[in-house]
Each structure stands twice: as structure tokens, then as C-alpha cells.
């Protein structure tokens, strides 16, 4: 589904991704962990097509297509979804209106009829249940005045509405209380259907108790430096990153 080869990217002349290799197959859940500033959000941004991030090398194939050649909206329409680490507020635009526009754009790109208000409302109500979202939230402006946790939940709600084939969750768990964490994880699990893939960026192994990953990777200095199963997350929780940093820095200096 997603194949990243030797990806290099920089922002403001500063190289952040240094030859990253990574593969996601349909239905897989990959967790990415790594110290602050190691490039996790950068990877997510590059995949979503954010302009400030300049790709300086490598390739990214998504379902046989060159993802890097596509503009951000086409990537989204092709099924790439990013749950933002810091969701943006759009004053005056209701969540419902925003999502209706988005859903119908995605449908249009697939040659499907636009949903009318009634059909849309019905789907929205189903998905709202999934993330236990209050009806009032859909009438409020996109993320405006939402608490940190509400914003994150709203991202998952949007994901549920858009039904992407690859969802990248950037620290969706941070800032969530215990109940919200469970709700968000349930939302994600409900969308796991054996075909849809997830890249879950997190700092906490706790999330991975709820969303059990197939693989866990460590991103450090713009590269995947270690991969393993869920056990790797437990090991990191216990030992921190120093042992990995030492390993990597030793080989880099060698």
C-alpha cells in the first residue's frame, strides 16, 4: 500500500528526514515512536503533502502511484488521512458543513454522487456514536474553542466520516483523559477492517494497549532505526531511548 524508499526531506534548509525506509501493507497497524524532534510529525507532513517540507530525495509510492507527485487534496481524495497533532481552528465554519464539503469532494473524485443533507446527516449520526461525540459539537465551528481532547476526538470523527485507506495519527493520544483515550482507540479499532492501514505516532505505550500494533518502529534523527513488535514499545517504556541513541550514534560515528 505505502512504500517509502530512502526519503529525505528538509524544512527551512534544515534536513530532517535522512533516508527513511518504511513499508505499510493493507490492514497493518504501525506504531512510530521516537524522541522529540526526531522527525515523526515531519514524516506525517511530508506524506500529507505540506508545502514547507521539501522532499530532497527518495520516493513514496501509494497504491502504485507516486504520492509525492500529487497535491495535498488529491492525496486526501486517494485515501490518505492525517489526524493532526495540532488541529487548526476555522471560525464561522460549522463542523458539519466542513465535513459535508470534504466528504462530497472525496466522493466526487471517486465518481460518486454528492450526498444530500439528509443522507449526510444519517451517516454523521452513525459516526458520532462511534466516537461518542455530542451533537452540539457538529454545529460548532471547526475546532474553535474545543478543548485539546475535543480537538483530537474531532480528528477521529473526521477520519470515521472520510473512511480513508491509510490513516496517520500524529499523537492523537496526547492530551486525552483515560475515557477519551478509550473512546478514540475504540473508534480506530472499529475502523480496522483488514484493509485499512494505520500509522500511529505516539509517545506512550499505553495507547498501544488499546490499539494493538502489528509493528513498532523507532524514528531517530530522521530514520527508522529500530523495528519490532509490540514488545519493543514495552522495552522503550522501561529503558527509554538512550540505549538506541547510543547504538545509532556509535554506527554514525564509526
Amino acid at each position, binding site marked *: 500500500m505505502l512504500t517509502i524508499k530512502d526519503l529525505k526531506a528538509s524544512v527551512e534548509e534544515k534536513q530532517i528526514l535522512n533516508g527513511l525506509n518504511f513499508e505499510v501493507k493493507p490492514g497493518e497497524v504501525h506504531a512510530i515512536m521516537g524522541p522529540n524532534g526526531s522527525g515523526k510529525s515531519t514524516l506525517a507532513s511530508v506524506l*500529507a503533502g505540506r*508545502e514547507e517540507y521539501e522532499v530532497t530525495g527518495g520516493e513514496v509510492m501509494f497504491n502504485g502511484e507516486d504520492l509525492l507527485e500529487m497535491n*495535498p487534496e488529491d492525496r*486526501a481524495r486517494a485515501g490518505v488521512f492525517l489526524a493532526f497533532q495540532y488541529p*487548526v481552528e*476555522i471560525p*464561522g465554519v460549522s463542523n458539519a458543513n466542513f465535513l459535508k*464539503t470534504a466528504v462530497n*469532494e472525496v466522493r466526487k473524485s471517486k465518481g460518486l454522487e454528492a450526498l444530500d443533507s439528509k443522507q449526510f446527516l444519517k451517516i454523521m449520526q452513525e459516526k458520532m456514536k462511534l466516537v461518542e461525540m455530542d451533537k452540539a459539537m457538529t454545529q460548532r465551528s471547526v475546532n474553535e474553542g474545543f478543548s485539546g481532547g475535543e480537538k483530537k476526538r474531532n480528528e477521529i470523527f473526521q477520519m470515521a466520516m472520510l473512511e480513508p485507506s491509510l490513516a496517520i495519527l500524529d499523537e492523537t493520544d496526547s492530551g486525552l483523559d483515560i475515557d477519551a483515550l478509550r473512546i478514540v482507540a475504540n473508534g480506530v479499532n472499529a475502523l480496522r477492517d483488514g484493509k485499512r492501514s494505520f500509522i500511529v505516532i505516539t509517545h506512550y505505550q499505553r495507547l498501544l494497549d488499546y490499539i494493538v500494533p502489528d509493528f513498532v518502529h523507532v524514528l531517530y534523527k530522521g530514520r527508522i532505526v529500530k523495528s519490532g513488535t509490540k514488545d519493543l514499545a514495552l522495552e522503550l517504556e522501561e529503558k527509554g531511548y538512550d540505549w538506541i541513541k547510543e547504538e545509532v550514534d556509535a554506527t554514525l560515528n564509526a
Partner: protein
Amino acid sequence: MSDDLKILEDVANSEYKWGFVSNIESDNAPKGLNEDIVRFISAKKNEPEWLLEYRLKAFRHWQTMTEPVWPNVTYPKVDFQDIIYYSAPKPKVQLDSLDDLDPEIKATFDKLGISLEEQKRLANVAVDAVIDSVSVKTTFRETLLEKGIIFSSFSEAVHEHPELVKKYLGSVVPYTDNFYAALNAAVFSDGSFCYIPKGVRCPMELSTYFRINSAGTGQFERTLIIADEGSYVSYLEGCTAPMRDENQLHAAVVEIVSHAEAQVKYSTVQNWYPGDKEGKGGIFNFVTKRGICLGNKSKISWTQVETGSAVTWKYPSVILKGDNSVGEFYSVAVTNNMQQADTGTKMIHIGKNTSSTIISKGISGGRSHNSYRGLVKINKSADNARNFSQCDSLLLGDQCGAHTFPYLEVSNKSAKVEHEATTSKVGEDQIFYCNQRGISTEDAVGLIVNGYCKEVFNQLPMEFAVEAQKLLAISLEGSVG
């Protein structure tokens, strides 16, 4: 609009009753302006002596005046002797089918979601089923007549209700007011007249849309609205269909009189041709709009969505004369490419406990310039007057300009005046967020800007608001980048 639609339906189902065709000889006045031309216009319209006198006085006064130069706009000087001041209303060119319509206009119709039937009507396509505006208007008028509401063209009102026209014409905007108001008073072509009797709530939105020959009267339009004690009316000016006009200069005057406990809500969507991307062509729109709250607790609200014209110069104002009267101004002004707008309002507080609200949203893209100019004046007599002003500017690029010129004159210590102003840019973050959800940049800008203008759109009648939103998106095309 739903009322209007109902009328359309009713009319479509009923027989054509009073089909009359106005038979005006099709001669134009020669170019230029002098007393003879003023007399010519008046004679053509078969006007009473007093109105000719009024026009002549206005003309003589106009000759002593010079064009205002204070607005923050630049444009080539208008040669007032190079304009034809009277041309008989021409029948619109009839098209055989919508296929003959200018594809650009057709595309805009489609984007606005205007129904095919309506498109045919607007484009004057010759089809049997097309509802003739004359008959629509007749039915429309009957409903109003039952309530004693007068809604007609200005010229008709001059003949049918001379006492009302004589009493109120120039009572809010005297011809001495400004250069363009004087010019309009001298040469106005036609416009609308509306009178709501005491205690009557007008049951439908009155729209200039339904006026005969309205397309031909655009250049020097004159509108007079009188709401008698305790009455209510919502009036819509303009329609959101694309407007093309060969007349470059537009100088309209709108006067509103709101008596005690009466309420007038006046909504405009203005989308005159803005010129091309390089600023060639386009309408100069120099409008004087003013209302007076004459009695206790009277209210006037202006809501405007301005997206068209090359140069706009417009300050819908309210004179709050009656105690406890209320003035409101809600405005969205969009400029793109080379457009220039200098718009705002004046709230003149005279009565006690008067209050006014100003919400202005200026949006500029391309290389356009967008200025808000507003005056809040609290007279000595206006005890406990209150004003709240909020003027927000949104920049869509870095080659456009937004300017705010708030003027405040307070002569009464009990006044409470609040002014807030912000300038912001459409955030890259917001656009990217929309992109990431599958929404193109152009649609994203439309969405974000519509959200930004929500407070103003909320003031518009529902159907009008929907079209205004679409219109906004269309006029923003290519504004970012």
C-alpha cells in the same frame, strides 16, 4: 425568497392577465449634460412641473460642485459630458435558447445553482413557459395591495402617489448632500418606490428583482422607502445573477424613512462587473444610501454584500433622530484583482438612548484595495447613546491592501462607544487542513472566508444568504497565490 418562489409558481399556473407592453419611443438623448437634457428627461417621463423644478435645482447646484477626492480610490476622471443621460429602455435581446447565452454567464448561473427556469427568465430566453416579469409583478402587487402596501417603479409613484413622493423625495438625501447625489437628483432614470402603511407588516420580502425594465434603470437609480408608524419591511436590492452593463458610471440614491416603531431591513448584494484581471472596464459605483429613524423606537438595518464594481464608494448611513431608535450596518466587501472599494457607514446619533451597531468585514485579494470608512457621531442631544463597531480585514495575499478609517465625534459625555478592529490573513495552516480533507485550495478559501463573514450573512434572508455565499466563492477565484 420562498414567498417569491410561491408567487412564481402561482403565476405559472394562472393565466396571463394584464399583459401590457410599455410603448416608449426609442430615442436617446444626445451625449452630455445641460438644462435641456434635464428637461428632456423630465418630459420623456411626462413628469409634473414640481419634479422638473426639483431636477433643475439639483442640476444647478451640481454645477457648483466638484467631484470628491477624499475616498481612498484612484480612477480615471469621469467625463460627464461624454455620457448619455437618457436612453429609452431597450427590450433585452431575446435568445432562442440557453445555448445562445454567453458561456461565462451560463457558467456563473450554474455555479450559483440558479434553476434552469430562472436562468431562462434572467437571460430572457424566448420560451412559452417563461414567466413574464410583468405578470409576476401584477400578482405580487395584488397581494401587497390588499395590505395597502405600495410597491412600484419610481416613475409610476410620481404619477400615482405624487403627494408621498413630493413629501419625502430628498428629505433624507438632499440634492445638496454630495456631488453624486446632486447628479442623481438631476438625471435619475427610475428606481423603486415603496410605502408601508401604519401598523402593517409586509408579508414578503420586497425585491427589485420583480420590477419591470429594472435592467435598463441601473445607471442613476432612485429608491425611496417609507415605513409608516409601527410597520415592517424587508427589502432586497439586486440579484446575484451576473450583471453586465455598458454604463460605466453608476450613481444611485436610496432614501429610507422609518417612522416611530417602524423597522426597515435593507439588504443588498452588489455584483456589478468588476473589470478584467488587469482592471480594464468595470463599473464605477458611487452610491448614496441613507435612512432616517424619525420616531421613537424606529429601526433601520443595512446589510450589504459587495463583490462587484471596479470602484465602489458607498456609505449606507442612519440618522438616529427618534429617541430609542436603532441603526445597524452589516457589511461584507470583497475586492479581488484590481478592484477598489471605499465603503462603510455613518451613524448619526441625535435622539436619546439611540444605539448603533457596525459589523464590517473587508476581504481583499489580488492587487485590490479595500477601505473601511466609518463615522460615529454622537450629538449633544443624544443622551446615553451607544455604538459598537467591529471592523475586520482579511488579506488573501500580500499584494492587496486593507485600510480602516474610523471617525468618531462625541459631543455627549454619557455616550458609550466601543471600537474593535482586526487584520488577519487566511492561514496557510487553515488551507492545508482543508486540503488534507480533500478540499481544493480555492474551495478552502471560499469556506474560510464564508466562515469569516458569517455574522453578516446571518443577517441576510436565508435564500439570499445561500446565493451570496456562492457568489463570494466565485468572486474569490484566483485570489490567492
